[in-house]
């Protein structure tokens, strides 16, 4: 049985841990709100981009003449897995879940005899992959933690990916990140980056729009040139979105994790307090017995 003093110290220490986790939970909640707003603010751009890509995609037929980013290299021997994780930990299974999904995919591809390369964004992913797939890592990029994700960061990653693609380092690129469902639910997700998956063109809604059919859209320069210009941008936008979602997911996960930790600390404190009181009473009882025994023997 621990001494009274040791128990008291432990309770005090857990109380201060609880204070820290509680504060972290609140900080994560505030940051979650901010990153959700950022994700919201970025939506118009990517929606328009997707709409234009879709309308272009319905006009351009994919052939050997098409830009490589769209058509691919025609092979699927080498895979580049871009894994976006966070810079910090203390977010429960957040990074583990992304890494597990990516690792499973990597092992699956390797089993099929493909070559796998890993491009890691975020420090936590590197730590995990260094242990199992050290040779596959081609590059790690650090993200800026805390501050709102900048589009420039996404452009850096996109440029890195495109650069490797033009040097024929890989045939297919896939992006791994955590999709934000809600503060409680984050879902590790895979998106194929190259060859680009064009979103389906929205069907013209003839039922609701009366009036003349929409005029044919003019393209300046022609469709192919615009597409060639848009594809790299689209890549950056997709990565940017992934980063924003990932950030929101991270804070969501951290909030949940810290909430659990706070509650857990509360439980431990209750348990320890009971032990502390029992020990104290036992000590008093023992003392009383000793006093009474002493008085009787007189």
């Amino acid at each position: 049985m621990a001494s009274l003093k040791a128990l008291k110290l432990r309770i005090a220490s857990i109380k201060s841990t609880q204070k820290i986790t509680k504060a972290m939970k609140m900080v994560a909640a505030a940051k979650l709100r901010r990153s959700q707003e950022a994700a919201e603010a970025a939506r118009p751009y990517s929606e328009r981009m997707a709409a234009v890509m879709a309308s272009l995609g319905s006009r351009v037929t994919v052939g050997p003449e098409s830009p490589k980013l769209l058509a691919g290299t025609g092979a699927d021997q080498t895979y580049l897995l871009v894994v976006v994780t966070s810079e910090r930990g203390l977010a429960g299974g957040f990074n583990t879940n992304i890494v597990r999904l990516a690792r499973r995919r990597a092992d699956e591809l390797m089993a099929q005899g493909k070559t796998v390369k890993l491009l890691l964004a975020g420090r936590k992913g590197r730590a995990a992959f260094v242990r199992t797939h050290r040779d596959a890592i081609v590059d790690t990029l650090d993200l800026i933690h805390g501050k709102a994700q900048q589009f420039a960061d996404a452009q850096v990653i996109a440029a890195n990916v495109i650069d490797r693609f033009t040097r024929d380092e890989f045939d297919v690129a896939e992006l791994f990140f955590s999709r934000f469902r809600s503060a409680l639910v984050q879902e590790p997700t895979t998106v194929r980056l190259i060859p680009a998956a064009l979103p389906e063109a929205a069907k013209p809604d003839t039922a609701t729009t009366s009036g003349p059919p929409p005029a044919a859209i003019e393209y300046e320069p022609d469709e192919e040139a615009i597409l060639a210009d848009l594809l790299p941008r689209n890549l950056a936008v997709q990565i940017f979105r992934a980063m924003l979602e990932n950030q929101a997911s991270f804070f969501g996960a951290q909030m949940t994790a810290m909430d659990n930790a706070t509650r857990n600390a509360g439980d431990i404190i209750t348990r320890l307090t009971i032990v502390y009181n029992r020990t104290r009473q036992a000590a008093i009882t023992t003392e009383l017995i000793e006093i009474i025994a002493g008085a009787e023997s007189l």
Partner: protein
Amino acid sequence: MADVLHFELVSPEKLLRSGDVYMVVVPGTEGDFGVLPGHAPLVSTIRPGAIQVFPTSMNDVPERIFIDGGFAEVGPNGLTILAESATPVGEIDVEATARALATARETLRAASGDALTAAEARVARFEAMQAVAVN
């Protein structure tokens, strides 16, 4: 058809501007073009340069915003410009731009291969920025 042009300026980070204007002049890759209400549907890429926004009529002093490339889409709902970055011309730091241009030219001289294209783009970008800021 509405007699005002609905104009939206969107960057990847946020919706910068949304409102009704009279006309917008856009520096397209193949030449500047003005967009008035009821313009035919069009998609065009943009070269680095300033867009000019005329709030109510032709005689207004246009509001000038520097756009660092992107693309413009004219549809039934008006004009949307997707730009990677946008700065009101008045906020461009002329000296900083001149310095950046000098550095970019410096790198261009030393660059070759892939880096050359990137350096050329940088020089073109800062040249456009400077040209816009000075006028």
